[in-house]
């Protein structure tokens, strides 16, 4: 892949995704902007990326890696949420509202709520990588 191909790939991604980890290479997750920067600088991993096909960026990671990627992404997204907001739901007999910190905790310990979020995030990743 070259810089132009990476730029074309990035153009197909939502702006809100460019600084959130999406691509897993050698067990490490990289944001689209990090991938572009490495290819531009042509050093380290960037040099190796130049030898790969751009389709390598669209590869959905294996399940354990996808699971971890979803957790990393959720944490990153929730950390950005302004503190005055919470997430809420209309459920009877269960906790109704969650701050970002509470949700991160649920995701870390993979509670039923945490798993619900992880599963949704996995679908989002698959959708993004298919673009």
């Amino acid at each position, binding site marked *: 892949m070259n810089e132009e191909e990476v730029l074309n790939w990035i153009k197909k991604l*939502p*702006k809100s995704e460019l600084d959130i980890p999406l691509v897993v290479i050698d067990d490490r997750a990289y944001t689209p902007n990090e991938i572009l920067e490495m290819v531009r600088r042509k050093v380290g991993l960037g040099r190796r990326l130049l030898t790969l096909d751009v389709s390598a960026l669209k590869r959905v990671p294996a399940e354990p890696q996808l699971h971890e990627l979803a957790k990393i992404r959720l944490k990153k997204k929730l950390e950005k*949420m302004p503190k005055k907001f*919470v997430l*809420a*739901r209309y459920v*009877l007999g269960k906790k109704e*509202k969650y701050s970002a910190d509470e949700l991160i905790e649920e995701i870390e310990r993979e509670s039923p709520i945490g798993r619900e*979020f992880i599963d949704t995030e996995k679908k*989002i990743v698959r959708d993004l990588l298919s673009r």
Partner: protein
Amino acid sequence: MARILLLETKQGLPESELPKDLEYSSCVAREIAPTLRSLGHEVIEVQSPTVADAINAINTYQPDVVWHAGHGQKCMTTLEHEDVWMTHKSSSYGECNEDRYLEYASNRFFSMLSCLAGSELGPRLVASGATAFMGYKTSFWFVACDYEPCTCGSGLDDPDEIRAVKSPMQCDIEWLRALAEGKTVKEAYERSQAKFQSEIEYWENSTHPIAATVLQCLHSDKEAQVVLGDMDAKIGVSAPTPTPPLTGTPTGTPTPAPATPVPLSSVVECIFPRILAGMLTPRLDKGVIFYRVQCIINKWGNAFNYNPSGQGRTSD
């Protein structure tokens, strides 16, 4: 023309950890009420409804469509202050030990903004005769303000933050809007799903710090949304009359059913609604001009159409 009942709940638990939680949805429903009226439909709005208020409104107005927001479980939905409304007997939740108010489902469209109810209660309502049901099989997530309620963006200045607190609800209410425009149940569901997608695309292209969180809600709610029942049904269109057989013995002229007199209590209910329902004068509360006259006409019509095995009153 159809009759649309909006049960505009404000708060789940009286001492809710999220004040005015249900108002986040009801304010969006209230905002589209004028549009629904402009399309020729009669819209009845009941504020902070208890179950008694909801049943009273259904009996009085015989609505074709019922929309509400309320805390839910797989087998149950509630109204103001978690007043338990419809339930079906199920082992999925401890309090679902009987079928409750399912007879009110018959020939109606339900839009139920209530977590989980789409997984069990929705199918049960359709089995009980509801024409259609739209709801959510898992949690319905939305963005709210932590300390001061910011329903429909009240108290917020940033247009994106205002959009964020309304975004999932706007997608939900799209089903009702599309039905009111004459779409079928299936087309209305597709419109609602398309609205979810267009909101997803809007937030995907935003760099606002709330964007990722709203996206999480939208993806989850879009996936959770279910629609059940007669996919070709439309509101304000009566069920087709069965065509009589072309052959066979004529059955003669049917004898008209004797008219049931309008009970005195119903007339009193129309003339003194505040006393009986403990609410605002309905002309103001529900936007019905000449409320009392309209109410008596409705009661008179209901008395003639009363069906003892169908949608009659039930004991509480």
